[in-house]
């Protein structure tokens, strides 16, 4: 058997791939579910914090800035490990999925709050005053005048950050989440062949290359003309 055949036999073993293909697909769905949950909770929480911050309550704002800084500074894996291995000491036993979901949501919340907040402050003060002078309330001004302009500015950095954080779903494999990497790793140890890892890698590419391309498109589409 030549080197090439051995290489194919090792990394692209058709029999092993056929055997573990369904597991990887199961993992793909877990990854998609996890990523979608993180995006929704993380962005909603981030926007909520940014809006709360716009009310200008000083003590509350210090709290927000501290929380944001904390989750920007901590590595996501550290937060996951802390929740998964730490909370059981308080008789709260979160699953790996919940630990990863909560951790990545907190991280996305922190990053998106910063971006939303920067977007809100970027809208000129005259816009506020003009809207208020037409009789709109604080909430109405925020919702109909400021937020639409702020969101437009925030879309490119937000998209890129969200993509980067959803890729962190692979960290779930460390706390036994059966997402793509977790499924692929256990398939490798069961079959003693790395082909499931090749499949897993392909699954990630299928999932994320369109997302990265979309991010690139968003960047040019919403680029701020100076």
């Amino acid at each position, binding site marked *: 058997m030549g080197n090439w055949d051995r*290489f194919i036999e*090792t*990394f692209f073993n058709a029999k092993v791939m056929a055997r573990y293909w369904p597991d990887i697909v199961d993992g793909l769905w877990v990854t998609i579910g996890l990523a979608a949950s993180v995006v929704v909770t993380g962005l909603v929480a981030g926007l909520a914090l940014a809006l709360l911050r716009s009310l200008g309550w000083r003590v509350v704002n210090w709290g927000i800035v501290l929380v*944001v*800084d*904390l989750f*920007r*500074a*901590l*590595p*996501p*894996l*550290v*937060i996951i*490990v*802390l929740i998964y*291995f*730490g909370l059981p*000491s*308080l008789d709260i036993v979160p699953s790996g999925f919940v630990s990863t979901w909560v951790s990545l949501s907190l991280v996305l919340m922190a990053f998106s709050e*910063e*971006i939303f*907040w*920067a*977007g809100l*402050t*970027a*809208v*000129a003060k005259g816009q506020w005053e003009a809207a208020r002078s037409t009789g709109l309330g604080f909430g109405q001004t925020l919702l109909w005048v400021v937020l639409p302009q702020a969101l437009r*500015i*925030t879309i490119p*950095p937000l998209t890129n950050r969200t993509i*980067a954080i959803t*890729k*962190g*779903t*692979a*960290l779930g*494999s*460390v706390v036994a989440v059966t997402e*793509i*990497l977790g499924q692929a*790793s256990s398939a*490798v140890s069961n079959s003693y*062949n*790395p082909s499931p*890892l*090749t499949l*897993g*890698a392909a699954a*990630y*590419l299928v999932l*994320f*290359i369109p*997302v*990265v*391309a979309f991010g*690139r498109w968003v960047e040019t589409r919403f680029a*701020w003309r*100076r």
Partner: protein
Amino acid sequence: MIETFFNIGILAQAWPIILAGLGNTLLLSLLVVPLGLGGGMLLALLSTLRNPWIRWPLIAWVDFFRAFPPLVLLIFLYAGLPFAGLELGGFTCVGIAFFLNTGAYYGEVLRAGIESVAQGQVEAARSTGLSRGQALVWVVLPQAVRAVMPDLLSNTLEVVKLTSLASVVALPELLFQARQAQSLTYNPTPIVAAAVVYFLLLWPVVRLLSRLENRAIAGRG
């Protein structure tokens, strides 16, 4: 709760282990940041060549490694390659994975920086007799790096945070050491301590970045 998460006795016991981990995290960062920066600079410089035979493969390369979660890349190198008879060891795998992954990100940042420098700058530099290479090194790059400084810094923060992945391939950095200490003491205090160490180490960078970013986005309004 204090007893569980902030146990002083256990902290005293685990402190030397955690300190060793911090040292390794710093060393690892000192290794992988220049590695990623170097890879990124190489990609960015290659992208200045207008040749489509270089440009398209380059975009494909960068998107490939941006789409690939770094942990998947690391596991592939660490657990996959030995089947091909290539036992690289955790340290080398981390180095290669960071070179490929963070290199792609640094490359994008630096490319954007180079493209932000006006074409007239190059023409003016060339007209004074500088060669293409000289104009790039002495005129374009200093301005490019300056323009994207916040992004470079933000990327570097992410790279330092990412070194925690090395714990998965048993490199004794901060997170790995904390988990060792946790399993020895049956208490989560060491992990809390590691988190505090990470926070104290990186908080100044986060503060600085948040100010730079606010200024950058606010400037567009």
